[in-house]
């Protein structure tokens, strides 16, 4: 139950439903039966966190155990934080309302770099010191997972353990271990020493970093028996892997509020800018039957009327059409929509297309990513102008009048001509509409162009590249706007400085921790929110710590430089990445994994198995 204190402040904040808990399918257990209390923290708002599939999976997985209780915690919005601090209410978990400082495990998921100050802020709101070294007791142990863990260095002094890779198995390992050490009455150090024996566990405090005189990393040396390289964990068989049959159903409207099915992990495309495409390899598919069963159970337990089939590139799922046919047998009757994000609609059977709402309702989206064929070859985005045009034509034939195109600005080797190419391509789509005899009568067309800023990321072929400086990006954005001559095309661009900051942290080292802490102490939080982000405070923080953001973001690295994340092993061979980088600069594309394995090395993590070619062959 909520305390009176809390009830009083709930009526003073926006959307109090973010802070109450009590949603359908949330799990409440008897404290007395529980050996390990786990606070799963999402360092952003409730609405964003509640849309995140990984959290739903781990929440269900931990709560399957009788000896553990996983609860949800989100970053309170500014108004709530103010009230909590004023009334001395510490950060609490939604299910029990208990302060998380008393929990055994506090686990963060790091989905994007711009949430780092929120991690510190949440620890502080919990009443805990933000630095690991100042948290002396065995519990709470602070852990973190998620894609940003592939380079966890900027957060190294704050987190006790990072868990690179997929969380399903390692989470249970950690819970077992903390349970054992609590019973033994161990010290934190004893626990950490034991923890690093588990595959996929990184204790940053056991690694010392030396630097060269030019500020690059010289060496990272482990101690206390920690491994030289920390190998990420993966789940080998998705069919037998845990998947929840219940989702917590929020009262509030959240970003994605629906049944989500995961079709496969990894991606066969190999777009050179896309970190997710490399981080989640090797490719592992779920059987269509597994997916269908999971969808059915989730719809039954939640009452959701939409199923989203999600994966990095949904149309690459080898069993997509049979799955859709099976699903449609009951979803139509039960008035359930099927949404297919990230879908390429070329070769999509017309009768299936008609039945699928995601495509029908939201209009058409397409991601050419770059404006010219030359640059698309550089980034290995195998989309041709003809494909964009034929898709647009199909769309207009089908009665749509809105098309959305996604691009990136600042890609390696990009020239102003490539930037102009974005506007030209959008113009061609507009022309396609007016030349189409079947276009919807009496209507006009809108082509929305979203141009985000390219940020080089670890474990991609572009991890050595210099990111465009804020000045260059701004210039290119301006050029894009100027190249656009029609009002039928709407262009939107990302804020420049946030992309630079993202770039700094993505490839940063431990020295950045001080900048993060300084910025947070000066009031930075929710940096991913344009209306909260404070450029000036961040600039001051870098100055105060005497650290140059350009060193991290806009410096070209050489292939033989020791990278701050070289001791993290995501199964991807460095030679493969170097080779891909060279091919990029030569403008040579690499075929998709379905056509030919290009030897990225990640299949070794899975006993040599990769489902890219065909599941049965693998």
């Amino acid at each position, binding site marked *: 139950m909520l305390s009176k204190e809390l009830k009083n402040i709930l009526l003073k904040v926006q959307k109090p*439903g973010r802070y*109450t808990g*009590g*949603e359908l399918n949330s799990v409440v257990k008897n404290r007395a039966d529980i050996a390990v209390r786990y606070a799963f923290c999402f360092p952003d708002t409730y609405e964003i966190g509640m849309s995140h599939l990984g959290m739903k999976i781990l929440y269900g997985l931990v709560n399957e155990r009788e000896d553990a209780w996983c609860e949800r915690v989100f970053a309170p919005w500014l108004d709530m934080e103010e009230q909590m601090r004023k009334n001395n209410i510490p950060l609490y978990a939604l299910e029990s309302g208990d302060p998380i400082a008393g929990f055994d495990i506090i686990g963060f998921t790091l989905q994007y770099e711009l949430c780092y100050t929120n991690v510190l802020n949440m620890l502080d709101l919990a009443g805990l010191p933000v630095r690991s070294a100042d948290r002396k007791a065995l519990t709470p142990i602070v852990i973190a997972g998620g894609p940003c863990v592939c380079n966890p260095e900027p957060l190294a002094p704050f987190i006790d353990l990072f868990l690179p890779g997929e969380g399903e198995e390692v989470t249970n390992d950690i819970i077992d271990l903390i349970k054992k050490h609590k019973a033994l009455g161990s010290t934190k150090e004893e626990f950490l020493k034991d923890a690093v024996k588990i595959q996929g566990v990184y204790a940053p405090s056991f690694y010392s970093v030396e630097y060269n005189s030019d500020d690059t990393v010289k060496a990272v040396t482990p101690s206390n028996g920690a491994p030289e390289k920390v190998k990420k964990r993966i789940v080998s068989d998705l069919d037998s892997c845990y998947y929840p049959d219940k989702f917590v159903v929020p009262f509030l*409207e959240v970003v994605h509020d629906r049944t989500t099915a995961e079709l496969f992990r990894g991606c066969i495309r190999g777009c050179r800018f896309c970190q997710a495409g490399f981080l989640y390899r090797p490719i592992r598919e779920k059987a269509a039957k597994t997916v269908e069963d999971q969808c059915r159970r989730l719809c039954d*337990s939640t009452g959701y009327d939409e199923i989203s089939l999600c994966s990095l590139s949904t149309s690459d799922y080898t069993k997509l059409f049979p799955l859709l046919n099976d699903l449609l047998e009951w979803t139509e009757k039960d008035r359930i929509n099927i949404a297919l994000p990230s879908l390429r609609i070329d070769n999509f059977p017309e009768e299936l297309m008609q039945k699928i709402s995601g495509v029908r309702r939201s209009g058409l989206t397409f991601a050419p990513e770059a404006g010219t064929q030359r640059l698309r070859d550089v980034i290995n985005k195998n989309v041709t102008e003809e494909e964009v045009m034929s898709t647009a034509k199909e769309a207009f034939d089908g009665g749509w009048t809105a098309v959305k195109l996604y691009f990136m600005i600042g890609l390696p080797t990009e020239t102003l001509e490539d930037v102009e190419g974005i506007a030209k391509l959008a113009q061609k789509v507009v022309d396609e509409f007016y030349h189409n005899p079947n276009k919807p009568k009496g209507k006009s067309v809108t082509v929305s162009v979203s141009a985000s800023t390219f940020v080089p990321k670890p474990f991609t072929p572009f991890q050595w590249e210099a990111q465009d400086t804020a000045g260059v990006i701004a210039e290119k954005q301006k050029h894009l706007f100027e190249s656009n001559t029609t009002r039928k095309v709407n262009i939107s661009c990302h804020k420049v400085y946030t992309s630079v900051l993202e770039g700094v942290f993505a490839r940063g080292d431990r020295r950045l921790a001080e900048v993060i802490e300084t910025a947070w102490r000066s009031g930075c939080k929710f940096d991913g929110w344009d209306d909260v982000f404070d450029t000036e405070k961040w600039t001051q923080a870098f100055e105060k710590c005497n650290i140059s953001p350009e060193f991290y973001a806009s410096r070209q690295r050489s292939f033989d430089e020791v990278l701050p994340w070289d001791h993290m092993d995501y199964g991807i061979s460095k030679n493969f990445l170097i080779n891909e980088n060279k091919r990029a600069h030569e403008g040579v594309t690499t075929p998709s994994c379905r056509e030919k394995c290009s030897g990225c090395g990640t299949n070794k993590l899975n006993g040599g198995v990769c489902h890219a070619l065909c599941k049965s062959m693998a």
Partner: protein
Amino acid sequence: MRSVRVWLEKSGRAIYTSHLDLNRCMTRAVRRANIPLWYTEGFNPHPYLMFPLPLPLGQSSDGEPMDIRIETDMTDGEIFDALSRVMPEGFTVKSVGEPKDKAGDVAMAQYGITLEFPDSAQAERTAGVIRTLIDGGELTAEKTGKKGRMKVVKEIKLNDFIHRFEAGSEDCYVKISAVLSAGSTVNLNPALLLDALYKAGDFEPVYTEIRRQKLLKSDFSDFE
């Protein structure tokens, strides 16, 4: 197709659900209960489910009517059982039946209001202040409305909308029982009345609870 009125108690953590959220939440509950809802026809079919008098956020209720149209021969009892099994925390199905009155017949609502004070002396004193203020008949509140496109601030006389009012004290609590205008045309939110009282009487309780007890028609008989 037939219409059914479901009466729901709303309390605990559920009171922070806004009207829009409640609609979505209940549509899902009905789906989980496997009660086939009737869908509107036309371009964008949606299930028929509505609340005759949405409850403001933060208030609890003994019985909120929810009107649905269904396509099934399930009996009221079966619907009651099916819905009861799937309700989220904080919602209890009180009864299920035919809607006797039209949604527009709601004219008033009866509320039970509890105000908590640090001690009983303060509670007693405040109860007196509140009675004097109500009897004085001069309570006003500002309401922003729209006149065409312009925003206008109107002063409204609250006493016109208060039909019954009793206030007494019990330990450190002031207990109020009030019947206020309610409905889609004239409606007095008890929270607005309380704010006016706090302002005019210059006091503020440490804790407040508002519970809607029932809906009434213009002749003071129960809305059913």
